[in-house]
């Protein structure tokens, strides 16, 4: 099923090293749309990513540093990048370690601009 977010998510997934892109509700962790290139359960990825983003937002708020614009989790064999701040929507990318994070960050921020 196609949603208004599908073209944006497919564009993100075309970036080199991107394994999945999703748009998630931060409030309840439910997936709104996704473009998955691997055999993951999108709903679980969405819930985990939303929870991570929420934790980052709360800690930034506690530190009085304002809203979280971009989040990047680095692990041995992969990365999770997320942007939010438009209502409760969070755009998430799961990528390989070799992925160009700088480019993904720019594309994610651009994608966020298109989300209303």
């Amino acid at each position, binding site marked *: 099923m196609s949603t208004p977010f599908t073209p944006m998510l497919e564009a993100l997934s075309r970036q080199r090293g991107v394994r999945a892109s999703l748009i998630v509700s931060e409030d309840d962790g439910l997936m709104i749309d996704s473009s998955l290139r691997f055999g*993951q359960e999108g709903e*679980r*990825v969405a819930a*985990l*990513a939303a*929870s*991570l983003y929420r*934790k*980052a937002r*709360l*800690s*930034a*708020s*506690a*530190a*009085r*540093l*304002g*809203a*979280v*614009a*971009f*989040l*990047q*989790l*680095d*692990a*041995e*064999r*992969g*990365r*999770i990048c997320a942007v939010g701040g438009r209502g409760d929507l969070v755009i998430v990318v*799961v990528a390989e370690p070799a992925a160009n994070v700088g480019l993904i960050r720019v594309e994610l921020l651009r994608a966020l601009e298109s989300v209303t």
Partner: protein
Amino acid sequence: MADDIRRWSDELARDPASLVFLQLSEALRRQGQLEVAFKIALRGLERHPRHAEAHDLVARIAVDRRDFGRAMEEWETVLRIMPDHVGAMKGLGYISFQQGRFSEAETFLGRAAAEGGGPDVTAALETVRRSSGGIRMPQQEQRDIDPQRLFADLLLDDGQTALLLDASGYVLGGLYLDSSGADLGEEIGAQLSGISDEVVRATRHLDIGEWKSIVFETPVAVIAMAPAVDATLLVVAASKATPLGLLRRLLDRCAERAAAWLSAERGS
């Protein structure tokens, strides 16, 4: 509050010379709308360049934006206009402490206390006096380090701060002071408690191995976190202007310090 903001905005629109910009900007600052608050305060300052409270407001917003250089300039201006301004003394004490200039911090906070700064100034002064007791850390035995000063000599740049948290989110070392000198470490630790478990769950489910770090950007700062020895969590915050590569080096240096300190603690 939203009604107040609307009312003050209307009043300022009707009379741009009104001092209501002080209330409006402060309310927006408290809501975390720092850029709007800053613009309004600066516009007010243009019309009232000798108004001490306007300079104080700009300084406090600058601290929230982690622009400590600007904050210091503004508070110095406040003291030129109003030499007994307690808020400016507290602010300058806070910045001096953040920059490792403990003697100056003690002087400013001492003056603020003498002017009737209240219990928060007294508490901040005690923190500074505890922190300024020793020589620089590298020359000390690790186990003798005041936990609150654990990273002090690594964090001399404006706006940098670091905390070491245990697995429950309690602060083991480091400090996180706000512009009034209050330590936000416990509050931040509480917010971060459990993040390690969530990260581990996420990385395990995605089969991407052990996590190495999380970085998140806000309009005013970059925050980096990394797992450290003994299931501890290291948190470093720096100004938005700090390059990410530099932030990672800072994170590494703090991790080394934390590991050495925890090792010494175990051995003592």
